[in-house]
């Protein structure tokens, strides 16, 4: 079985169609960042989170109301697989210490449901200081990954390749974050881990395309570059799609069957991989061509290089 062989799709000549799709998605992402923001998990914000199993079924609303009586504005979510028995309860820190908040929540639930009618299966408390620190460290981690990949590519390929790959990468990260923001997915440590991994993985497809362009480099001149690049993208199209597809198979399985924690984590990958493949095909190469054409002159203008 073979797919997508011998295609002659004018990826570069029709580039503005594809770039506009990306620009629209990026713009929408920023709109969502601005309007909806992120549903930060307690990892980054501080607070208390419980996983509670009740002996008899109850509802999100009932739990929320019983906690509201104690003055908590809690977020309650049922965990998929159980029949109204297992819930995640989250709330901000309302007292001097997180421990106090934690014991108040438990007391409130005991008041509403009675002693021994529920079990706290997991508890997580994060002090505000730790939350802030993670916030800063997380942002730094994303920046480090992007820089490290930029340096690696500049070193392994010609410099004119690196910006295309990294811009495609930033594109993937922004749009994935846009989805997370828009859908209100809880942004916690594992989502951040997924984002970082996507940054490392989504560049793979770009590398496959660039590797082929590098191989064809001897044939590249200002007049042939569009043809050579288009030919390279078409020649590698099937593997770009299939490599992403196999990984997608794995993460879709995790998304559908992994349960609680893994669910959102896998979803982030699904979005990241699809967007990553799109940018590898449609975004990275036009930027390479732009760099090939304009970088020498630009470098002189910026004072990085003395002459052409």
């Amino acid at each position: 079985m073979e797919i997508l062989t011998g295609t002659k799709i004018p990826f570069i000549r029709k580039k503005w169609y594809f770039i506009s799709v990306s620009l629209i998605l990026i713009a929408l992402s920023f709109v969502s960042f601005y309007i909806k923001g992120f549903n930060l998990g307690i990892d980054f914000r501080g607070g208390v989170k419980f996983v509670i199993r009740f002996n008899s079924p109850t509802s999100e609303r009932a739990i929320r109301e019983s906690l509201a009586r104690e003055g908590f504005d809690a977020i309650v979510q049922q965990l998929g697989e159980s029949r109204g028995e297992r819930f995640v309860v989250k709330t901000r820190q309302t007292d001097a210490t997180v421990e106090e908040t934690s014991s108040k929540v438990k007391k409130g639930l005991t008041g509403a449901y009675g002693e021994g009618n529920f079990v706290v299966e997991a508890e997580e408390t994060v002090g505000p200081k730790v939350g802030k620190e993670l916030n800063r460290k997380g942002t730094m981690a994303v920046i480090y990954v992007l820089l490290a990949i930029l340096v690696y590519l500049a070193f392994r390929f010609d410099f004119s390749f690196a910006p295309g790959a990294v811009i495609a990468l930033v594109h993937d990260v922004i749009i994935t974050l846009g989805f997370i923001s828009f859908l209100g997915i809880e942004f916690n440590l594992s989502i951040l881990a997924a984002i970082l991994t996507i940054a490392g993985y989504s560049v793979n497809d770009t590398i496959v395309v660039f590797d082929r362009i590098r191989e064809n480099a001897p044939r590249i001149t200002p007049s042939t570059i569009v043809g050579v690049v288009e030919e390279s993208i078409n020649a590698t199209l099937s593997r770009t799609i299939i490599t992403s597809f196999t990984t997608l198979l794995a993460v879709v399985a995790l998304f559908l069957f992994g349960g609680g924690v893994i669910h959102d984590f896998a979803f982030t990958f699904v979005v990241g991989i699809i967007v990553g493949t799109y940018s590898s095909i449609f975004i990275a190469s036009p930027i390479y061509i732009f760099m090939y054409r304009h970088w020498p002159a630009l470098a002189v203008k910026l004072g990085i290089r003395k002459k052409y």
Partner: protein
Amino acid sequence: MPSSLKWRIVLICAVTALGIYILIPTILGLKEKREAALQKGEELPWYYHVLPNKGLNLGLDLRGGIYIELQVDLKSAVKRQADLAIYDIESTFKDKGVSFESITQPEGTGTISIVFKSREDMEKGLGILEGYAYYRERFIVKERFENEEKPRLTIGFSNEFLDNFERETVRQATENIRNRVDRYGVAEPDIRGVSGNRIAVEFPGISDPERAIDIIKRTGQLEFKLVDGYEKDRVIFFNMKDGEVSQPQLSAMIDKIKEEEHLPENYSADTVSKINEKLRDKIPEGDEIAFELVRDERTKKVVKALPYLLKGKAEVTGDMLEDVRLTPNSMEQRFEVGIRFNKEGTKRFADLTEKNVGKRLAIVLDGYVNEAAVIEEPILSGEARITLGYGYEETEKKARALSIVLREGALPATLTEATKSVVGPTLGKDSIRQGIEASLIAAVAVVLFMILYYKVSGLFADIALFVNVILLLSLLSVFGATLTLPGIAGIALTVGMAVDANVIINERIREELRRGRTPKSAVENGYKGAMSAVIDSNLTTLISGIVLYQFGTGPIRGFAVTLSIGILTTLFTAIVITKTIFDYRAFKGGIKSLSI
């Protein structure tokens, strides 16, 4: 067969066999059984000695347990340190005839304000603070108001001193948590300092989180107790009921009891009290046996425990201590620990040392003996020096360790919970089941797709994938890595990404075939041409994995580790194994056609 091919086959088989061997204990769940047997003191069956004793560690999110980060309250520690310094400066000024109005710590900020009687006094005071090395290293002058009616000076701790002090305080807290955890008798606790002056404590599989946290946070109980015995030729003899017993003899007796009674292989409070109970008829009325724990320097695991027979009553306790100081003694070329008692302590210590010259006094923190020093002379002033042998290098480490112990009694570091996560065992089991199910479905989907799309060549990739997972898991268990829920997801992800290498290679081979090459040269060129793309793309993912490891804690680290190791095993299996299979076929009958 060409020798390079032969060697590759041998290497692949050997590595796979080794991987399976390493995984046997994990697959059979031997680790838990081993721990259970050791706790009960049972004999282990023979195969435990043949198999590796490491298994795959399950993270807290899978196994249940507690992870807690404690913040060391440095502010209040600095405040206390400033109070001590005030006492110190006061007595020096009095000694040297410097008249002052007051020395105070305004608002508990760690800075000290000194109001002098006159300008001359201030000059003299400054002379002392800047002249003596002891003060010069500790303080910097922040402000001086010479022209006021009462000249005033503000001093604060120097940055070097503060850095050092903070480091020591965190270390003190870490050491003491370690001791208390041993007292609780938890298996495999993990205690380490993390950034931001926090201490991370991890207890896998603990059923009673409230109690464990209580124990960690409790301030240390420091006591001075007399050793009931004497020393001859560097061996300590204890006065047991039916005669003298040397320390090695007592140690042997205890070992025998532990074996007979199937006591666990630890020295937790529980175990120690059971030992005392069993020896009840041999221990003099009111005495008790306590242990000095000897730890491996690197792993911090207890390797030896020296028993002591102590008089039961604590003569002096930690709350009577006022100050503890690690001081170099240049006259005698060694480090010493200086301690100072408060009024009550001074009286009691004088009384105790007068009556017991020549005996040993044990310093006991949270029930464990830390040092048993000889009382050389009566100490009436409330200030004592503890010496620990000779030589700067030899004594520094010991003196430092002891000063940490004593300081915990005198100036306990305050700990607050910064972040905590508790996972019950049932939740963990459900997570494992779902995680593994999802991963298996992912693996089956990928395996089937490869066969469907690449036929026999896809099957080769699947064989490589199988070995890949074995190697990944066995490396994780060799490195003692911890498998977490995101880690399981990481394995599934690795499965999906691992075949990428084969996809790239196989597509290249197809391309070469379309160009009309023979199957054999298509394979050769396919591998050659695809190599750079395969390596580059895997290395960028590895970069993410490494950054993620640096950044993450707990579950995220588990994910980063699986991801990174998975990439390394992928590079080996997806390239070397599949290529070897192709080469073997070529050798067997030549490749006439390719099923790809």
